[in-house]
């Protein structure tokens, strides 16, 4: 079928573009491409390349992939093109989880140890699950889109306030949390990459394998039930996947907005396909978007750098406005 063929082409193009941006990312920095060219003979250049630039650029790709995946799952699960990990309380819950972990265990988001990265991911995952469950409870299910989004906003504000309270109560985490709130890949090392990749692979396998259920759900809950799909169990699993993907990304890179929302839209504007393929392609698109944004954030005002979360918020916000403008036009869709 042509949808499969187009999806394969798009997937290949996204991988090639990601490889190109990875190369670019390895060369962007105060020492430029010199570090890449001299890495084999110069231990300092090697250290810059291997310990700093490569893990952070690859980390941006994996974190973006997690957010893109979470966005595609959220939009399919809630049958809503505006659903996004940030609008369903999962990101604010994850941020609260990280703030609590930092305050209680006195750790730092710059830590590179595996145990710390896993601990932060666990705290973020727990917070994300709580955020989504609170949103669903407040919205009394997922049937009413407006109520769901409103509940997500309320939960986001309340959990955000709780996070601020935790941060203020532990002044020594204030600086770390500020960097975290702006979103940054600056403290992503190989341990963070490994944790995100493992979580991402698990989330991708589970979500893509449930793609056919999301296809059935696309025609409505009643149709899905009439097809014998176990909706209650599948919803619980997909909410866990959503929370795991968001939690893993937020724990390692902080709050990075709009990647989850924009990635599935961009994929759908190029290819119309099943949810199984959409989830994989959205992950690839999210990875490319965040990696490109990260390189841009390091390059625009070099040798200083912009927090990548600020850049994605500005670019993503503009994209959302454009989508809304298109929606008002005859034939424009969201």
């Amino acid at each position: 079928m042509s949808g499969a063929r187009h999806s394969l082409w798009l997937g290949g193009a996204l991988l090639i573009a990601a490889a190109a941006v990875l190369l670019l990312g390895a060369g962007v920095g105060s020492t430029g491409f010199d570090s890449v060219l001299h890495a084999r003979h110069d231990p300092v250049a090697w250290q810059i390349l291997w310990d700093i630039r490569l893990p952070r650029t690859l980390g941006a790709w994996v974190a973006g992939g997690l957010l893109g995946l979470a966005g595609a799952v959220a939009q399919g699960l809630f049958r809503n093109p505006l659903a996004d990990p940030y609008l369903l309380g999962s990101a604010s819950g994850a941020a609260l989880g990280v703030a609590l972990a930092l305050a209680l265990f006195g750790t730092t988001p710059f830590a590179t140890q595996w145990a710390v990265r896993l601990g932060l991911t666990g705290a973020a995952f727990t917070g994300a699950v709580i955020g989504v469950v609170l949103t669903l409870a407040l919205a009394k299910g997922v049937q009413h889109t407006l109520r769901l989004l409103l509940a997500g906003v309320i939960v986001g504000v309340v959990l955000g306030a709780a996070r601020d309270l935790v941060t203020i109560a532990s002044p020594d985490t204030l600086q770390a949390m500020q960097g975290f709130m702006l979103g940054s890949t600056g403290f992503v090392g190989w341990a963070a990459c490994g944790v995100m990749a493992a979580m991402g692979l698990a989330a991708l396998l589970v979500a893509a394998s449930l793609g056919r259920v999301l296809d059935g759900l696309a025609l409505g809950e009643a149709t899905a039930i009439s097809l014998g799909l176990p909706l209650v169990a599948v919803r619980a699993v997909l909410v866990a996947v959503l929370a795991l993907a968001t939690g893993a990304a937020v724990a390692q890179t902080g709050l990075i907005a709009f990647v989850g929302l924009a990635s599935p839209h961009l994929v759908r504007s190029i290819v119309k396909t099943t949810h199984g393929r959409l989830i994989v392609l959205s992950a690839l698109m999210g990875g490319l978007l965040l990696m490109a944004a990260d390189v841009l954030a390091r390059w625009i005002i070099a040798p200083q750098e912009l927090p990548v979360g600020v850049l994605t918020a500005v670019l993503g916000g503009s994209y959302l406005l454009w989508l809304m403008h298109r929606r008002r036009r005859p034939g424009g869709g969201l």
Partner: protein
Amino acid sequence: MPAALQAQGIGVALGGTPVLHGIDVALPAARWTSVVGPNGAGKSTLLKTLAGLLPHSGEVQLLDRPLAQWRGRERARRLAWLGQGEQGADDLSVWDVAMLGRLPHQPWLAPPSGADRAAVEQALRATQAWDWRERPLGALSGGERQRVLLARLLAVQAEVMLMDEPLANLDPPHQADWLLLVRELVARGKTVVSVLHEIGMALHADQMVVMAQGRVHHQGACDDPATHQALEQVFDHRIAIHPLGDQWVALPR
């Protein structure tokens, strides 16, 4: 004639408001039954209840077994349901939408089998949607979309098929095609139950359930004068049933 679906004392409340009251109905196997009645009579609610999609009091039996005792996928293979104006899935291709009808037959994670592909092709050809199989559902007109959704129902190859307003958006030639298709299905031993607003089309069925105010007002053969009388009654005598050749037509008074 054994009943494919049987409802005893069915009551349904939606949002706290009672919608169906003590419905007793038996829908014969290998026959076409049409369900008609004025707006708000509870036709769609009855169909959804018979499909096991709504919580209810009383008991529904599918093929002589209580509906609650059927496992989800097993029930889905025996009973297929087409909802009223199903929305969404605009990004899926026509082929993928029709393939959803095979979900109850497919093992978890297994790709579609040869039998699945054959069933989908047969269904798409039966509704004349085969030529657009690669187009996204969202790119089709209302009538074309309805034919694809009908193909999704046919692809299930269930013994019992429930259709809620299957003629919505279909032009007269395709309504006539649907009629032929239903007759062919019944001739092959399938049970078809359809909610219809087109009384003239509904009168082509074998049986008719006439509903009003959440109750079954009458059930009988479509050529029975008592059925015609019941139809005229529930529509406040604003329509009259007349013979036309070997058919019956409903005309406004």
